[in-house]
């Protein structure tokens, strides 16, 4: 039954991808950016679906199982403010500059903005290196989920393979429009199924109020932040959602908007979507302690699946599996498409083949890169073993560190390429240092102070950008006026 539900779901996703292909015009602009024609609702759903991944559904419930209700404030509510603010202040500006200059990727913009090929190349390397672990979160999450919902009957490698294959088909076939449509469908699926699962399981546990009271009696430490979190950790963790401002896949989705006003719905509705997904994840994770009081760290990532297996019929387990697959694929598709687009635009086109390639050939190259990236990500997932939560946090830390570079490009006329290089070098050095120090430690903070590395990396990156820009020669006036035209 479980596998049948998941198979039906996969077929439905492929159907949505095929449907979107009917609108495909065959041009590169259509494949890579859906001809900048996406409306407000699809923009909201595709941005939210892209941003939410197995990290929210599995990582958050696992972390809540271990650390309690404070996970919502630590990760979800801070995103509810920071991410829409990033869309409002950064996304809309990026959309405007993208539309005006015809950009498809961040690297195209940053290379032009500071007139530096080398900077573009380094940004390309940094972005690709940081997206890879983020991709792995999805592939690993899919494998773990399929194994869990089938009671261990299906090995872990199968789930990742199925997800990678389905994503490969509809992304190579439908491009960004197919991705946006499939994301919209999948986001609705995982929001509705998540809510339905939550209601069913909580009712089976005797109702939310009664279950929480029982848990409060047994594990009062999970009902408060207490020693599980520190205020400074809360404050500095709020830097993590700044990563949304540097994700290449979100950047591409911003550029698909038909007009700037299409962001309005996204900005207002985003916190509501976050609450709809995260509250059930956190509560189910915490409540898992009632039925499964002694799970190890890796086991706790599947606490939600275990709860459903314990309380609900196989149909619901299948639906939850479909919901997790939806969350996984709605991120994975955009990430691989963004990487495929970057390889096509920032490497193949930029370094010599722009004039020699037709639109059709560019689309073909983009498709080949998407397929190759998925194969590599899947193979890496077979040899990677770590907690989903830890992988996500390190990837987000790197992206948040790049955020000051994006902000300076969009807002600061006096910023220079020396500033951008300095910021990038600072992120590379600090991120590597903290990664080596903290890898494998679930609760790593800077020197044990409670300060999350992301805050240090981001602030140091901003400082490096400001100091190096001010110490270097001001940028050419013509270059500045190109991107900040005088008022007419």
């Amino acid at each position, binding site marked *: 039954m479980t596998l049948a539900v998941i198979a039906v779901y996969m077929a439905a996703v492929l159907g949505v991808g095929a449907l979107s292909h009917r609108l495909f015009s065959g041009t590169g602009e259509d494949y890579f950016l859906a001809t900048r024609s996406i409306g407000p609702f699809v923009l909201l759903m595709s941005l939210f679906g892209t941003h939410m991944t197995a990290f929210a559904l599995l990582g958050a419930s696992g972390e809540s199982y271990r650390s309690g209700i404070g996970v919502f404030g630590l990760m979800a509510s801070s995103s509810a403010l920071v991410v*829409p603010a990033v869309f409002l202040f950064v996304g809309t*500006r990026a959309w405007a500059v993208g539309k005006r200059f015809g950009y498809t990727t961040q690297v195209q913009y940053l290379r032009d903005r500071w007139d530096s090929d080398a900077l573009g190349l380094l940004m390309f390397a940094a972005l690709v290196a940081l997206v890879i672990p983020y991709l792995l979160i999805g592939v690993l999450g899919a494998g773990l989920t399929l194994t869990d919902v089938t009671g261990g009957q299906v090995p872990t490698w199968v789930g990742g393979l199925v997800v990678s294959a389905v994503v490969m088909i509809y992304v190579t076939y439908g491009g960004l429009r197919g991705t946006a449509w499939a994301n919209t469908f999948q986001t609705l699926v995982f929001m509705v199924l998540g809510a339905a699962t939550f209601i069913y399981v909580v009712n089976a546990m005797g109702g939310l109020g009664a279950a929480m009271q029982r848990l409060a009696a047994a594990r009062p430490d999970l009902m408060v932040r207490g020693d599980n979190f520190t205020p400074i950790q809360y404050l500095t963790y709020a830097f993590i959602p700044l990563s949304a401002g540097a994700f290449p896949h979100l950047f591409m989705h911003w550029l698909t908007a038909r007009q700037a006003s299409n962001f309005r719905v996204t900005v207002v509705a985003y916190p509501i979507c976050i609450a709809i997904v995260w509250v059930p994840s956190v509560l189910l994770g915490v409540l898992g302690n009632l039925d499964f009081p002694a799970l190890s760290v890796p086991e706790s990532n599947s606490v939600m699946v275990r709860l459903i297996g314990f309380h609900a019929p196989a149909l619901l387990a299948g639906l939850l599996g479909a919901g997790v697959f939806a969350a996984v694929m709605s991120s994975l598709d955009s990430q691989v498409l963004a990487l495929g687009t970057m390889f096509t635009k920032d490497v193949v086109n930029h370094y010599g083949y722009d004039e020699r390639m037709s639109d059709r050939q560019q689309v073909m190259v983009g498709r080949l890169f998407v397929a190759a990236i998925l194969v590599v990500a899947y193979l890496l997932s077979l040899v990677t073993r770590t907690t989903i939560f830890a992988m996500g946090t390190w990837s987000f830390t790197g992206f948040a560190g790049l955020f000051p570079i994006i902000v300076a490009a969009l807002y600061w006329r006096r910023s220079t390429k020396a500033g951008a290089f300095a910021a990038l070098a600072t992120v590379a050095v600090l991120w590597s240092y903290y990664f080596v120090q903290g890898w494998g430690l679930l609760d790593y903070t800077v020197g044990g102070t409670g300060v999350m590395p992301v805050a240090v990396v981001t602030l140091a990156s901003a400082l490096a950008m400001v100091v190096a820009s001010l110490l270097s020669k001001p940028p050419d006036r013509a270059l500045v006026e190109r991107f900040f035209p005088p008022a007419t």
Partner: protein
Amino acid sequence: MRPLVYGALALLFVIHTDVWLWNDGRFILGLPVGLGYHLLWTAAVVGVLWLAVRHAWPEELEAAAERNDAGGQ
């Protein structure tokens, strides 16, 4: 209106770290108060963002995007 909206967003950021409820084990609406607070806080964020898109929207961006003197990619 923009300074007011931006100030409200900054205030929300400051009161996100609710140290005054850190060890409070009471319940509100069937939820631990540490979670209930953050749900109410999220609702407040929605309200302020609604004000932002109504009264502090960067209208000038549509015109900037349509400028034809760009000469980019």
